[in-house]
């Protein structure tokens, strides 16, 4: 048995090598909900980013004089199905609001802002969370302080503090960056610095576990500097939890922004975001339910699809589940 030379063919793998990301993609594809979520999320993004270039109505235009009277309170075209004499127009597929502004156009523009806020706040929160998590996990001397800080943030009543902070800094920042830019920066910063705690905890735990592994010992034995150690060896290995919390972070940020807008603490008037559009229409929802339904539906659909993508990513990036 032992003297027979091993043929090279037996050790040769018979399939071409697969990269890690190909495996991840294969697992992700198998998750039906995640694929649907990704498809819906991408189409919402494309619609919202490219839509306003192709759409014919100006969302900010407030008609005056006779136009105002003929255009205001147009119903969506599908209203004809159950209300034949409703005021509809093919030029305004989703109708207009009480000032005669086009609803679909405002939804598209509002979506841009909501998604931009969500993405920017997510980036900020993930950066902060990763920075704090890696620092606390890698440098023992910072661990105690940073984790107490994390616990403290988790114990803060965030929604009340967010409301107070918006009220505090809105005018000051609006003075510097203009009403829209100021509110954008304010909301992104506030959402970012109040949602990094989960990421930091997960990253810290993973870094602590990784630090005990042999490859870290090997890297240290050849004199790798802490900076290189983190960027070359630790960060790539904690990428998967970071990606998952980044995905879920978009959902949280969009919801927080809409909640702030809904409570009247968001962007200035006549600056649409989905939450703001919903808030503005609540008073007249008995007469025009569609103005409430559409923005709310878009928020929910975006968040739902993002959550499904996050779920799929979590499964796909976990090597223990992969290939099952």
């Amino acid at each position, binding site marked *: 048995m032992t003297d027979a030379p091993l043929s090279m063919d037996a050790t040769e793998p018979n399939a071409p090598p697969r990269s890690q990301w190909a495996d991840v993609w294969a697992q992700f594809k198998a998750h039906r*909900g995640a694929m649907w979520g990704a498809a819906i999320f991408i189409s919402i993004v494309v619609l919202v980013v490219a839509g306003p270039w192709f759409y014919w109505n100006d969302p900010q235009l407030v008609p005056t004089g006779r136009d105002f009277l003929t255009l205001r309170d147009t119903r969506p075209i599908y209203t004809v199905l159950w209300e034949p004499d409703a005021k509809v127009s093919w030029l305004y597929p989703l109708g207009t609001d009480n000032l005669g502004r086009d609803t679909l156009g405002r939804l598209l523009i509002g979506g841009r802002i909501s998604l931009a806020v969500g993405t920017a706040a997510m980036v900020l929160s993930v950066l902060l969370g990763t920075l704090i998590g890696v620092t606390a996990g890698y440098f023992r001397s910072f661990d105690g302080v940073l984790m107490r800080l994390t*616990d*403290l943030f*988790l*114990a*803060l*009543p*965030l*929604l*009340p*503090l967010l*409301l*107070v*902070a918006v*009220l*505090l800094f809105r*005018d*000051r920042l609006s003075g510097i960056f203009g009403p829209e830019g100021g509110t954008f920066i304010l909301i992104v910063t506030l959402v970012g610095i109040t949602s990094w705690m989960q990421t930091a905890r997960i990253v810290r735990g993973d870094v602590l576990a990784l630090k005990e592994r042999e490859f870290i010992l090997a890297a240290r034995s050849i004199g790798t500097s802490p900076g290189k150690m983190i960027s070359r060896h630790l960060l790539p290995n904690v990428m998967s939890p970071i990606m998952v919390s980044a995905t879920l972070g978009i*959902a949280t940020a969009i*919801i927080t922004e*809409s*909640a702030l807008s*809904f*409570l*009247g603490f968001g962007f200035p008037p006549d600056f649409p975001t989905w*939450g703001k559009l*919903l*808030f503005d229409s*609540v008073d007249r*929802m*008995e007469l025009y*339910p569609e103005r*409430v*339904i559409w923005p*709310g*539906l878009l*928020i*929910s659909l975006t*968040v*739902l699809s993002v*959550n*499904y993508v996050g*779920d799929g990513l979590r499964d796909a990036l976990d090597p223990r589940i992969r290939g099952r």
Partner: protein
Amino acid sequence: MLTYTFRRLIISIPTLLFISLVIYLLLELAPGDPMAQVPLTVPPDVKEKMREALGVGQPIWIAFPKWLYQFFVVEPMYFSDAVFGTSFAEGQQRVISWQSRSPVMDIVIQRLPQTLWVVGVAYVVAIAIALPIGIYSAYRQYSWFDNAGTFITMVGFSVPPFFSGVVVIVVFSVWLGWFPSIYDTTLVVDSWESFKKQLQQMIMPVMVLALQITSQLSRFMRASMLDNLNQDYVRTARAKGLGEKTVVLVHVLRNSLIPVVTVIALGIPAIFGGAIITEQVFKVNGIGQLLITAIQANDLPMVQTLTFIFAVLIVLFNLIADILYGILDPRIRYD
């Protein structure tokens, strides 16, 4: 266990003091003036006197300890006076709201029952729905029931309360006309008729809050059941001939409930925060709505006290969750 509880209680005191300082410093920066609502005919020097009387513009090393003293010493004294008929708080200054010039805690106690009713009922309903769903989904993993449950919980997770609230108002109160869209807090329940009314107006807010809590809890319950269903002790229980019902509902369920109970405890303060939005949608004048109006009116003592009460709830329920975990799971040793 007792020493652990005691140690945690001691640690939570500096935490809470620090949080109250953070809230205070943040509010110190507030740009508004509580005298903004006073008519312009009031002369400036009178306004200045009124500000002084309210304690506006006092330096922080006077104002903050004063608030602490009033909140932690005077208010409990008043409470004991009111309940036991003692007279500790004779002539002591309480925390006064700038908006209504009446003691903050009195208003909070007026508003608390509305919030507690809605939130409490929603929480009980949600637990009653979530646990069976979670158990059955885990027991029949990947069945159609499980898949449908997963989808519904995902939806409940993703739909924000300000949208689900609005949708149920449009459907049940505008189209169907079954329930009132505004919560009437002046309703006194003294007969079957008014009890029915109370039920009707509570259904929608409770539904909205319960949907959210149910989706979180049932997902957690399912995950916890799945963790336990593959354990060795389950095989042992089946091997010694116990019925399927006993195995799942006694052996597995009791073990899986341990983390779920702590999550239920941890979720209570978050529910109070989430109720802010639900209260706003259904116009329930509970403490969430009180907070919003106080923020808009620059009523700093009210905002400070309410935010601090929220913080106390969070710290307290974190502690309760940890202690419960230690009591329920004998494998956990804190000492």
